[in-house]
């Protein structure tokens, strides 16, 4: 038994690190290739490092394409979507977790049903809703549309999270003179940071990644977000060095943000998803 243990440990490390290397390779290769010259990018065998590093690709995408504008638009929409979704998730999750409402289980099932509705199904009817609300081709409209991605899952996760917070903590705050909402704001929410962070990053990435809604509902070129904005470059140009430079610019801000809250994800998902 003990001998096996000594063999097992290095084997575990070997598995873990080779899996990590494989998993990381695409991102590494994207970043490295963004510095390659036009000749280098098509070389065979493919080079793992640029033969001579150049910033020409970055210069091109920053000055010759509207990438920065698309990123600004995406950032506006993603921040809007994240805040809206968080509000709905907190309200829905908290009321489902803490109040004995009539039809609570029915509402919880409705939330799960909302999760399975295909986004593509929403596009056709919501087209008419957006026309009625005069929100077609606006960022505000896009925020509402993209919120449909995350609100059901957010409510579900936050409900589980709030249920995991002992009610006594809230009660003692209320004994000390807090109102119910005051207790939610001052006691429950600070304790829910992991859950909130998990929902926030989850939704931010969904929004930053959205193609469908932005493609269907945004027409004006100056309002376009990243995905539909770059769709043409992806299918037509085929200049991979420039694409990789653009990709690096798009990925890096999200990746940094993601890494800073990543440790919350496990605890956030634990509380939310264990419930089922």
């Amino acid at each position, binding site marked *: 038994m003990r001998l096996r243990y000594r063999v097992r440990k290095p084997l575990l490390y070997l598995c873990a690190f080779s*899996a990590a290397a494989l998993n990381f390779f695409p991102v590494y290769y994207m970043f490295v290739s963004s510095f390659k010259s036009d000749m280098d990018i098509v070389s065979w065998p493919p080079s793992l490092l640029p033969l001579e590093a150049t910033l020409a690709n970055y210069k091109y995408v920053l000055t010759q394409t509207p990438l920065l504008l698309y990123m600004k638009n995406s950032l506006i929409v993603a921040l809007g979507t994240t805040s809206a979704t968080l509000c709905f998730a907190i309200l829905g999750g908290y009321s489902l977790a803490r109040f004995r409402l009539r039809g609570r289980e029915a509402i919880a099932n409705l939330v799960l049903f909302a999760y399975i509705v295909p986004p593509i199904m929403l596009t056709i009817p919501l087209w008419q809703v957006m026309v009625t609300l005069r929100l077609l081709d606006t960022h505000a409209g896009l925020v509402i549309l993209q919120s449909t991605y995350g609100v*059901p899952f957010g409510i579900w996760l936050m409900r589980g999270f709030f249920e995991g917070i002992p009610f006594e903590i809230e009660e003692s705050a209320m004994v000390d003179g807090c109102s*119910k909402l005051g207790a939610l704001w001052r006691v429950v929410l600070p304790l829910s940071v992991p859950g909130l962070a998990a929902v926030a990053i989850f939704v931010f990435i969904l929004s930053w*990644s959205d193609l469908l809604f932005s493609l269907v509902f945004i027409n004006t070129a100056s309002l376009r977000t990243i995905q539909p904005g770059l769709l043409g470059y992806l299918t037509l140009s085929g200049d991979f060095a420039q694409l990789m430079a653009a990709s690096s610019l798009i990925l890096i801000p999200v990746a940094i943000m993601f890494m800073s809250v990543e440790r919350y994800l496990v605890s956030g998902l634990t509380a939310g*998803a264990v419930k089922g």
Partner: protein
Amino acid sequence: MKALRRLVRSESFLGFLLLLPPLIFLAVLIVGPFLTNALLSLQRLSVTRPQGEFIGLQNYRSLFADPGFWRFLWQGLVFTGSSTLIQVLLGTGLALLLNQALRCRGLLRAIFVLPWAVPNIVAAATWKFLLWPDGVISYVFVTLGLIDRPVAWLSMPATAMPAVVLVSVWRFMPFLFLVVLAGLQQIPLEQYESASMDGASFWQQFWFITLPGIRTILLVGILLRFVWLFNNFDLIYLLTGGGPSNATNILPIEVYNISFVGSSMGMGAAITTVMIVVLLLTLVLYYRVRRRELELS
């Protein structure tokens, strides 16, 4: 008046008040459109003919007679099923690995979840680059002697679907990995300790402690992932647009093409209604398995 005031001050009224905004959100933006969509599927409707003309089940009749529809439904199920299965196996394996006492666990976990943060357009661009004929994947396969000459993986009908599944596994696996990891951390360590004192082998511990411990959460994860992939439009659309010659076409892409490119919205609405029936069946299956789970425990 007094009764009203008491109602307004009562707890459940507050709860109802808090629930109202999300409820309106779901009703107006998801459940309402779901019902409207069902009505639209009974109409002849397009961008140029927005008022619609009632034609009964005509859309469904032509849909079910169309072999393309059955093919794209099947391809969607193949894509969703195989990608979910691989994600479950890999995600569980990696989570088990990282649940061991390893050094650099934080770094490894961060690397495993990194693809989650990669926007679809970035994932598509990067993988198109890796998968193009002169790319890294071809090079590796040629070097290993598995193929004679470079292959255009995404533009050949035979390889496009496996390639798309590969990318989706890479892009979407982190969620299942984290879900399983979260489940593993719920299992009390004492269970393992007492089991190894009783001389239980690694596999016995896995079978009798680990698996029952994560089964519930894994089931939820599988359901969420299956639904998400079945509905996913973005990734495949960016990678192949549904081609080559429809080899990776799935229903969400078909609906987009029919409704907004071909402008036959009634038909698109009919397809999405069928999609939701498939997903409801999945949901029923989930509830059944879960009920058996609850009875067992």
